[in-house]
């Protein structure tokens, strides 16, 4: 029998922006099997939250991810506010929504650029990242920061959107809408982009449901789930937007969903700026949180983000558990990889928009043996020791 060639991709590889290893077995130019090896950058953030106060944790949790920092803090704040029984002022709800949507815009633009880079189309990368700068500028205008906005606090937000900034923000949204429409035109018309993305990394509706995929990855397989609509939070209930889905289930469908969401996000942002209620931006929260637990769900740019917070009456949480969206998508990624060409591996991996820094505490899946191993921190340490020295 012919032996398949095993190609290790990563942990350091130009196709991946963060360390992960993918052992793919190939037969000719086609992938037969893929083995995902993760956790090269476990940082122990969940454990670290237990030694910090609720307010300090905000700044730690913001650093779980550089792209969706607002998603993490908002989700965390929602959980803590639920335990406290705090009522967040309307203005704060709207501002959270606004920042969250701007963050979605910059994350999706970033993804579109990286997707272009993965298929060797650096022009798309340069254009989308130029426009992403505009979003970053808008975020800087509001919060003073471009990456970690530090807008959230328990009980509300830390900064208001100034009246004199609103016209500038609207102008920025107009520019963005123009370029987003152009990108939609590009990705639906450009032949080489279609050649590389259509039918690549197919995921059926069934598999997407069965393997519990989240976010744009699922929506591209025609599963209509979106926490913003299904389990509304912040100000989404008062706003008008639609959940974008696609039927093709391939990488192209995912790009269509993501660009469609860009349009929706811009729409949401406009509505927020029009109906900003004004008034207080935060309710004062006590430093100590009574005993209790809460789960909060948030639609991060990459999909559903879940925070579980358990308090014990002190000013530090007893347990914070983060289920980041990328974690929900690993399984489908392995599924999507089977049968694609080697040349398509980077774009298929990238299509789930993996954010490894969010998800480096992991369910590991051994596809060669067909079993799943949920790894504890201790076992992870042992496993790492065992692997050391193996090339």
């Amino acid at each position, binding site marked *: 029998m012919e032996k398949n060639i095993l190609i290790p991709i990563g942990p350091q590889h*130009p*196709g991946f922006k963060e360390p992960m290893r993918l052992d793919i077995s190939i037969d000719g130019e086609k992938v037969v099997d893929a083995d995902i090896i993760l956790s090269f950058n476990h940082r122990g953030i969940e454990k670290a939250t237990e030694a910090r106060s609720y307010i300090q944790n905000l700044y730690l949790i913001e650093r779980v991810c550089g792209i969706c920092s607002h998603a993490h803090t908002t989700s965390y704040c929602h959980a803590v506010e639920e335990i406290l029984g705090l009522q967040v002022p309307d203005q704060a709800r709207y501002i959270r929504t606004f920042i969250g949507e701007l963050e979605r815009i910059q994350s999706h633009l970033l993804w579109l650029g990286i997707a272009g880079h993965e*298929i060797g*189309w650096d022009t798309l990368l340069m*254009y989308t990242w130029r426009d992403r700068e505009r979003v970053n500028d808008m975020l800087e205008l509001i919060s003073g920061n471009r990456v970690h906005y530090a807008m959230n606090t328990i009980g509300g937000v830390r900064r208001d959107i100034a009246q004199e900034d609103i016209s500038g923000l609207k102008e920025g949204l107009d520019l963005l809408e123009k370029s987003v429409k152009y990108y939609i035109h590009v990705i639906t018309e450009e032949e080489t*982009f279609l*050649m590389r993305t259509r039918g690549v990394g197919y995921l059926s509706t069934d598999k997407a449901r069965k393997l519990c995929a989240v976010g744009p990855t699922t929506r591209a397989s025609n599963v209509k789930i979106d926490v913003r609509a299904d389990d509304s939070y912040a100000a989404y209930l008062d706003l008008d937007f639609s959940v974008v889905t696609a039927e093709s289930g391939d990488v192209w469908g995912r790009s269509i969903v993501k660009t469609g969401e860009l349009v929706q996000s811009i729409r949401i942002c406009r509505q927020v700026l029009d109906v900003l209620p004004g008034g207080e931006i935060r309710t004062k929260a006590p430093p100590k949180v009574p005993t209790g637990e809460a789960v909060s769900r948030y639609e991060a740019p990459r999909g559903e983000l879940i925070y579980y917070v358990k308090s014990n009456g002190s000013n530090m949480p007893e347990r914070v558990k983060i289920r980041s969206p990328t974690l929900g998508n690993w399984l489908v990624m392995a599924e999507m990889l089977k049968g694609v060409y080697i040349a*398509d591996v980077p774009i298929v991996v990238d299509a789930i928009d993996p954010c490894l820094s969010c998800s480096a505490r992991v369910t590991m899946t051994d596809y060669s043996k067909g079993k799943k191993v949920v790894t504890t921190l201790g076992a992870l340490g042992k496993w790492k020791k065992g692997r050391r020295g193996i090339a």
Partner: protein
Amino acid sequence: MMDSLAAVLYLILFPGFVFLLVFGLFCEWVDRKVYARLQNRVGPPLFQPFADLIKLLGKEDIIPKNVDSILFQYTPLIAFAAVMTPIIFIPIWSATALFPLQGDLIIALYLLSIPALALFVIGWSSVSLYPLLGGFRAATMLFGYEVPFILACLSCGIIAGSWRISDITAYLEMYPASMLIVIPGFVIALLALEAKLERTPFDIPQAETEIVGGVLTEYSGKKLAVMRLMDDIRMVVGSSLIAAVFLGGFIVSYGSISWAGTDLTNVINFLLYIAKSLMIVFLLAVIRTLFARIRIDQMLDFSWKYLAMGGIFQLFIAVMYIGILHG
């Protein structure tokens, strides 16, 4: 004695090594600058390619332990020599090339496909996965673009009735209208050259996001510099060839142009040559900007379905043209 000395000077200075080096680096700059401007970037300064070359030459040169040392070390030089040689068959400052031969079009085409074979040998001798895959891809692509490229170039040979590049240029100058007939061939040759030079959308053998450094993953220092320079010179020689074969009409050889008593014909012709080559480099850069990288199977599909068919169509037109003209 004087003749051979002059020949050596031609080969070393102009239009040989030194000229190709300078023009090659300049073309790389033009390519990078156009690419950058089209992408909303500033782009590199004029001396950047030269600085890159000098820096690479000074870097540590590593030969991995398990490689086939002789192949690994000397294949770059063979590829380098092969891409430089066709320049002596290509008319630069007059309608006649430096050392024209009967059938030199075939020799030039042959020499220009040596680098792909060299890349395959390098991939094989590197004993490493990524170069190996890159080498396979380079060799596979050769089967895709080589036939259309040759078909397109030969159509011009058929029209001119000679397989000597200088004759083709002379013919196109005599009958400039015949350049219109080879426009499809020009487009085909341009796309095939893009593939030959392994540039987007055909940069499959060096797709960074898939196979890291591609064929040249194990190369460093001087050898990498030689290979990079080889790429630049291949671009220059390839565009010069296309310029001579398809745009040969833009040259002045009947009659002369002089200004203030000095004969400037050769200078004008040289400037025309530079302009033609730069135009082709510009077009290559535009193609590179516009498209995403396609897969190897799609590339082969594309070249056989469209490019090769187009090449045959061009050949047919050429034969018809000759038939009507002389028939």
